[in-house]
């Protein structure tokens, strides 16, 4: 009985060592707030379909590297970009750590220092320029399909806003 109470009291309050300067930096970045709660149990890796199919990718190990302060290695790696943000792991994490959110924080720091995988960068450039992702894929044939289905063919996307967003937040070092 005492053990049960103890476990309940621990709940989300505890922090676990080691905690590096890098993990504190992640903690202050949007999405990274919960990293110090990780107990390295490995439930994330066990739940992860990417880890299941790709032996290079081990989410627990990536978190461990952050906790240990391996900043350059993590920020320069493509591995944090492999998280599908499917959140299968965080449904199961007993400490309510969201790896999807932590990897967003890692990516935000990596992006600030210019480490964005080229295929991700291409999609980002397209979205910010066109306002959406598939302008180039919208062919006459698809327009005909939409017409047959009684759907509008003018999708009316706005790209002025994303251009403004690019100028304000993305160009010039992503300060915000």
């Amino acid at each position, binding site marked *: 009985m005492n053990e049960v109470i103890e476990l309940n009291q621990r709940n989300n309050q505890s922090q676990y060592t080691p905690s590096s300067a890098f993990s504190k930096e992640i903690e202050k970045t*949007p*999405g990274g707030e919960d990293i110090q709660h990780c107990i390295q149990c490995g439930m994330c890796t066990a739940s992860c*379909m*990417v880890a*299941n*199919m*790709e032996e290079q990718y081990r989410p627990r190990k990536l978190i461990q590297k952050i906790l240990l302060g391996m900043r350059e290695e993590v920020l320069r790696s*493509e591995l944090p*970009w*492999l998280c*599908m*943000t*499917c*959140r*299968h792991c*965080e*449904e199961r994490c007993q400490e309510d750590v*969201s790896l999807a959110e932590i990897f*967003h924080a890692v*990516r*935000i720091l990596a*992006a600030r220092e210019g480490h*964005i*995988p080229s*295929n*991700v960068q291409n*999609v*980002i450039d397209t*979205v*910010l320029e066109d*306002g*959406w*992702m*598939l302008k180039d*894929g*919208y062919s006459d044939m*698809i327009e005909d*399909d*939409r017409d*047959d*289905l*009684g*759907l*509008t063919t003018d*999708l*009316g*996307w*706005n*790209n002025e*806003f*994303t251009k*403004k*967003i*690019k100028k*304000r*937040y*993305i160009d010039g070092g*992503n300060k*915000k």
Partner: protein
Amino acid sequence: MKEFALFRGCTTPVRLPSYEASVIAVLRKLGINLVEMEDTNCCGSQYIESINHTAFAAMSGRLLAIGEKMGMDILAICGACSGAMKTVKHELDHDKKLRKEVNEILAEEGLEYTGKSEVKHLLQIFSEDIGYTAIREAIVRPYNGIRLSAHYGCHVTRPEEIVQVDDAENPTIIDKIIEIAGGTAVDYVGKTRCCGGPMLGMNVGLAGRIGRDKIENIRAENVQGIITACEFCNLQLTQVQFDDEASNLSKIPVMTLPQFLGPALGIDFDSLGIEMNKISPQPIIQG
């Protein structure tokens, strides 16, 4: 008649317009009118979200503000879009600084986020706004017990406390509607696992392996079809069956939930774009 502002997203109108048409036709049949949102932008999910958080909040925030201007709650039919808008709504409702920042940009075009409009995914419209009883009463041509498996979509159901659609570990909305329409809902190994779609931007081969693993788990249950609630999942679970590495066994038809439900409600096949499916769903429809 209840009304919602429909956000089509990027992928549905181009890659799976039959989903958009089916949503509109089926919801109209069930007493819900949709007004398509105009002058929209990408929700920022995954890509912009990964490089700058304020930029992401502004992009989804603008969509939320457009919904408010229309005076309607928003229906998002894509898992990623609904997840993004719900996440940003949650943040704007709890982070005054972020809301002020986003509203400063939106004010330049006369928009404002105040939190009035809710964001719902399609599954919530079925379970909350229409309800299972009304769906049951509208069935005129029930399926004859055909075995079907549901795939829910990660961003549709997780994180549960923010998206508030279904039980994230044991979702049941699609299964219930399969049964109401006369089908037999069949569970399978890894039901709540990802389709691999979000991996397509990073590693197509890896995305395919993840998707095909799901297909084979479903195939093991000897079902006639897969029912989805997100166009991205639907496209991915279809496409992986055409990969060079795919099995030589027959392809399993994949249908979105409204396209599957439509015929049971007496909606004609053309309005649902059934002929446009890459894997013919005739075994389901005729079954």
